[in-house]
């Protein structure tokens, strides 16, 4: 099994700690002139997304996480599992609802996603930064409203709810930034 020594630590390195996969966010080397050196590390749990602090004695070795980011296309879901396909091998992966998490609200089909695999098993899904989705329900805008000021909730075809300007109407297709869940613009045919 591969291991990393603390002197190989750098942002982006993936480790197994207490059985969970982590990604190094920040690594700071500290050392008294004549004393023990330490690495103060910020780590992101790849399952939960939570960031934790951990202090390592320099020279410790830590198990490497066999984590791979793979491009996959989203196919469909059955409510329990979300199904993806690796386009080169046509191999399909079923990812449980919990692992897909918030990404699910942006997926309608055929989106190119990045699926993170740990030891070949899907761990998490990253959706494209921008998606285009149609509004299935929103209250009618008040006549005379223009671009400035005010917004209202709109339900999209995937079930996601985003805030949109008052002039936006039901049936329109919107461009959404998935990182912030914010409306960007209307998409015109």
């Amino acid at each position, binding site marked *: 099994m591969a291991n990393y020594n603390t*002197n190989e630590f750098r942002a982006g390195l993936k480790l197994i*700690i207490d059985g969970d996969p982590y990604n190094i966010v920040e690594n*700071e*080397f*500290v*050392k*008294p*002139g*004549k*004393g*023990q*050196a*330490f690495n*103060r590390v910020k780590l992101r749990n790849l399952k939960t997304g939570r960031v*934790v*602090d*951990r*202090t*390592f*004695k*320099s*020279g*410790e070795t*830590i198990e490497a996480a066999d984590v791979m980011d793979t491009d996959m296309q989203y196919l469909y879901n059955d409510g329990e599992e979300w199904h993806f396909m690796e386009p080169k091998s046509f191999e399909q992966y079923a990812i449980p609802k919990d692992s897909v998490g918030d990404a699910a609200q942006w997926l309608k089909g055929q989106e190119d996603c990045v699926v993170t695999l740990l030891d070949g098993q899907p761990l998490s899904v990253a959706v494209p930064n921008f998606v285009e989705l149609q509004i299935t329900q929103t209250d009618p805008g008040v006549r005379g409203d223009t671009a400035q000021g005010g917004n209202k909730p709109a339900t999209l075809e995937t079930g996601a709810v985003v805030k949109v300007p008052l002039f936006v109407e039901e049936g329109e297709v919107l461009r959404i930034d998935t990182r912030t869940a914010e409306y960007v613009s209307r998409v015109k045919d």
Partner: protein
Amino acid sequence: MNWKPQATLDALSVRAEVNAKIRAYFESQNVIEVETPILNQYAVTDLHIDSIATENSKFLHSSPEYAMKRLLAFHKCDIYQLCKVFRSNEKGSCHNDEFTMLEWYRVAWTYKDLMKEVAEIITTLVGNYLELLDTAYISYQQIFKKYAGIDVQTASQADYLQVCADHSFKLNSALTAHQYQNLVLDQIIIPKLEKRHMTFVYDFPTEQAALARLNARGCAERFELYFGGVELANGFQELTDAQEQLSRFEENNRQRLLANKKAIEIDAEFIAALESGLPESAGVALGIDRLLMVMLGVNNIKNVLSFSLN
């Protein structure tokens, strides 16, 4: 290709000014500037300092201490050196594997005299750059009590672990009491010190004596200076007993083996110099790059180095 310098012209100028002032000061004090070899036959045995070896099994010095003490043993006069030193695998916002050290020795002085001289020199150097509020002198034991609520003479590992937990430190593995002391002082106590105070910590536990003499109170006559949130200097009442020095080196090597490090061939020329007689003296090493960081108010050592390896 990023070929451009990391340091601004301002940072380079401040370094030049500091170097010039240091040389002027020591000249006025009749302390002789010396140069000792960077390339050496022996490495240091310190458990926590790894020397950089060259292709032909020589070593870049991690400090000019042993060679300077050989000069001291023979010529018995005050000397200083401003030089580059090298340490393997030390890279961080306050560490670079190559850095500039000012080291000097005062014959017949005590370490307490020397602390005062360090304070005077730094006051002169930083004068135009930042406001220095006060100089504090506090023993190792007192500083642990005051800032961590720990009695270093009686504290158990559980006590240190509690202090770490109270300060949101989660450790990946258990530490020895000595390692906890290193972590607590460096990462918990120093950040709490007023940055514009020079804080001298003196009388270290005997396990951290390094090359300092032990006194009758059971302390190592060693001091460190913290200023601007960083460790700036380390000084000793120099150990003059050759036998005691040799047994400390041997103990270092035992510790190295326990830590899965290689034992280091002991510097026989240094031990021989001590046998011939090192005058009673106090010596100190001061990190120039970190002093420049504090003066310029930057928090990465790269900002005061013209260039550094990635």
